[in-house]
């Protein structure tokens, strides 16, 4: 069979973890209109922190540690941007660069940490039942629960008054200021929340892969952007928050399917980054290409 259950399952599992990173970019990039390029480093930071705490024997605490690490990273990016007047893109790059060293230090000045043989949240949940179904699907179910909770929280958050202010900050900052809200504050809260998601994703991937690697996060921004754009293309560019969050989930899983397909087609692993880049470019160009096609049709109709 060309596509097996295992391929679908793995694509969904990894897709769900990536969905958290996409959710992070949904908040920072789509909602807040800030280009946060610290995602790569923050994802690795979450991974490194969670790996170390997991080795110490606290797999659940590890995930919260990863979230807190993400919040710290987001806070620094936001601080550089709002208080120090550094362009948002540059602030992200600076933090990303700095995080490389910090990640190395977190992993005990080593570029690689293995957490084989220790309890992870996945082994804990898997051990709950001997049922064959549970044994093979527990990972996916756990990830689904975590991601759905994260999406639910995000939805709830974006509809609180603070969430509304954050959305308005991305939409029209001058309106936010004239409503006596400090945009520096809303940007900070937004970036902290976004990077909390990224950190959590890193923490989950550490326990999922049972390893943490310094180069794990490279290209994560592109992947998350690709997922985001795929989701937007499917669910509509300027839809409601619900549509946006569903788009995040659909986009991330679909992206993993495309990658899984590429794998099945024996595309060499070295070409993956190129495949990612192509997917992003095509997904973003899609609507415009459709317009061209329409225009061409209209022009022919005139003649």
């Amino acid at each position, binding site marked *: 069979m060309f596509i097996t259950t295992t391929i679908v399952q793995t694509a969904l599992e990894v897709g769900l973890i990536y969905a958290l990173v996409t959710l992070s970019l949904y908040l920072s990039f789509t909602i807040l209109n800030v280009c946060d390029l610290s995602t790569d480093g923050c994802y690795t930071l979450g991974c490194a922190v969670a790996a170390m705490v997991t080795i110490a024997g606290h797999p659940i605490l590890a995930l919260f540690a990863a979230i807190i690490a993400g919040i710290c990273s987001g806070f620094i990016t936001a601080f550089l941007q709002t208080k120090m007047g550094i362009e948002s893109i540059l602030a992200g790059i600076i933090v990303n660069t700095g995080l490389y060293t910090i990640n190395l230090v977190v992993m005990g000045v080593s570029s690689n940490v293995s957490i084989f043989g220790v309890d992870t949240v996945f082994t804990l949940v898997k051990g709950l039942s001997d049922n064959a179904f549970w044994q093979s699907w527990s990972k996916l179910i756990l990830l689904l629960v975590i991601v759905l909770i994260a999406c639910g929280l995000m939805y709830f958050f974006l*509809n*609180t*008054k*603070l969430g*509304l*202010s954050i*959305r*308005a900050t991305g*939409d*029209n900052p*001058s*309106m*936010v*200021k*004239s*409503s*006596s*809200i*400090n*945009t520096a504050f809303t940007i900070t809260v937004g970036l902290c929340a976004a990077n909390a998601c990224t950190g959590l994703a890193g923490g989950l991937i550490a326990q999922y892969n049972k390893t943490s690697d310094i180069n794990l996060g490279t290209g994560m921004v592109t992947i998350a952007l690709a997922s985001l754009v795929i989701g937007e293309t499917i669910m509509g560019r*300027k839809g409601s928050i619900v549509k946006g969050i569903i788009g995040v989930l659909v986009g991330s899983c679909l992206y993993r399917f495309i990658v899984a397909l590429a794998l099945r087609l024996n595309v060499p692993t070295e070409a993956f980054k190129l495949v990612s880049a192509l997917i992003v470019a095509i997904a973003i160009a899609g609507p415009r290409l459709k317009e061209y096609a329409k225009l061409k049709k209209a022009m022919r109709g005139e003649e």
Partner: protein
Amino acid sequence: MLQLTNIHKTFNQGTVNEKKALDGVNLKLDAGDFATIVGSNGAGKSTLFNAIAGGFYVEKGSILLDGEDITYRQDHQRARSIGYLFQDPMKGTAPNMTIEENLAIAYLRASTGNKNYFSRISKKDKEMFREKLALLDMDLENRMKNPVGLLSGGQRQALTLLMATIVTPKLLLLDEHTAALDPATAEKVIKLTKDVIAERNITCLMITHNMHQALELGNRTLMMDAGKIVFDVKGEERSQMTVTDLLDKFKQGAGEDLDNDRILLSM
């Protein structure tokens, strides 16, 4: 209510493009004063508003609002007591958010402290928004779930006015807020403005290029030129004034004719 003392602001200081935008502006508005401001382009009218609202800090002078020194207060802090409407209807609202959400953000000014951050828009708030929207008579109360981006310029400006006054501000700044609207809509928004100012006795400054408006609306008319207030009239003298008198006054004050097409066309 508002007291400006010797306000100075220079743009591009030390370069060939140096421009004294505000050159020692002194102004005292009493509570309930509604002053219109006229002047040619570049006279410093909008810069004056920006200085009051906190878009930049002035180089010299002080700004007192209701007895409080706000000279070095940040813009978002000043916004708690200052409502500001721009000429561009796009500037005052968030286009991708619904009417209800826009109003909810504007209404945040009413709350003090941080305890309100995680609450959602309450039923009571929605009812209040609906009532206020109904007063605009634009059928917006039945479109509360629509994104503001779908509204016309006039509707957006009326909504912005409602947002700026949903919590009664100490000072309302109107920067040609009807200039981008068609005459009928502009008249409607002006009427709404007049009503809300009169009803709640709001202290207000309004920039206009319409000389009739400058004399008809409010109780005081100011004229600016080259970063200074060159003419200030109210009471009996003002009620006797005609548009021609006003243009003459400008000639005296500025030493030149008011050469602005928009002003001449609107006469």
